[in-house]
């Protein structure tokens, strides 16, 4: 339970840790903190407000993530917490943490390469196979199983794999 024993800094840290433990329902190895979706946690009079930013305009996971944050905070004893969505600044794959990139690779998804500038979006991409590490890969489809992924294939080990697109 939230009591007066905690000052706002401690509360904020606890609330952040709780919110940061929520995972992306479509890529459950990534937390919303790994993704860079979790932007801010504030506490006012013991009430928590969490700010998140959507990844892609149409990403259906956002509704689910909002609900999961509210539930996680409720379970941790925070009452009447609020989740706010902000559009600005726009989310970019540059915000994905190093830990997140490593977890993605281990999960079998190639993490986004380089920076999300226009050059990054359209430059020649070399994506290493998350299975065997070979750079001898090719794109099968720019659009994959979710908004954030493209479908690639490794020409060395012949395995198809998902690539988390630069955005």
């Amino acid at each position, binding site marked *: 339970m939230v009591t007066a024993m905690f000052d706002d800094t401690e509360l904020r840290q606890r609330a952040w840790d709780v919110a940061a433990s929520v995972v992306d329902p479509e890529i459950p190895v990534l937390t919303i903190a790994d993704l860079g979706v979790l932007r801010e946690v504030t506490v006012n009079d013991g009430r928590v407000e969490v700010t998140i930013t959507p990844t892609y305009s149409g990403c259906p996971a956002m509704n689910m993530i909002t609900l999961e944050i509210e539930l996680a905070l409720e379970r941790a004893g925070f009452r009447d917490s609020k989740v706010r969505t902000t559009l600005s600044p726009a989310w970019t794959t540059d915000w994905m943490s190093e830990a997140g990139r490593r977890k993605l690779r281990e999960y079998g998804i190639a993490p986004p390469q380089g920076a999300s500038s*226009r050059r990054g979006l359209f430059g020649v991409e070399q994506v290493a196979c998350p299975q065997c590490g070979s750079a001898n890969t090719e794109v099968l*489809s720019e659009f994959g199983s979710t908004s954030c992924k493209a479908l690639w294939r490794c020409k060395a080990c012949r395995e198809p794999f998902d690539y988390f697109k630069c955005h």
Partner: protein
Amino acid sequence: MAVPPIEVRETPLVLYTLRRADDALILGHRLSEWCGHAPMLEEDMALANMGLDLLGQARELYSYAAQVEGSGNDEDKLAYLRDVRQYRNLLLVEQPNGDFARTMVRQFFYAVFADLYWRAMMRSKDATLAAIAAKSEKESAYHVRHASEWILRLGDGTEESHSRAQDAIDDLWAFTGEMFAVDDGERSLIDSTIAVDPATLRPQWLKTVSGIVNEATLALPTSGWMQQGGRSGRHSEHLGHLLSELQSMQRTFPGATW
């Protein structure tokens, strides 16, 4: 219809936002019609993904339009409870899918425009529109690349694919002028740097479009006559049919959720 249409107080900013929202919703719906019918699995997923991007953009824009209007409407009411004459989208985006070449030509014309438009709108003085633009421009960049590759493949492919792509270009060309048209309400938003003057985007649009079309061994029509009407609610017969499907659930079971 079981539910009467809503009334929308169309101030210049509400109307402006609705027009862009309607473009995204209607084109997104058209792309979704391919789901399960595309020529190959990868393309089925690509079209559905792009439809989802557009639907997401539409939702942000509708929510903002409803907020600016402040009359108790919301994204769902704006999408489901306006009649065909209240829709403000471009005639281009409501045109039927036709064959795959026609869908790709329509997509190509719109995506090249949307890409330039959203990039310019990132500098809008309206913070919400600028934020929506920053999100949408990355998505439209992918749409341009996808459509451009198909125009090249279709135009420079077989005799059959070439002639189908050329027919689509010839038929859809007359709907491209509306993208660059401006009325008095929009002019006031342009003057206050909330909106972008689309006429300034036309040279670059034409350069990109003609570049790809020529590389694909296709040709743009020389006729300059352009059809308009969508922005003020005068639509082709196709939009009513589209809306009857898109809206049937909410019109039959008002407020239904699941």
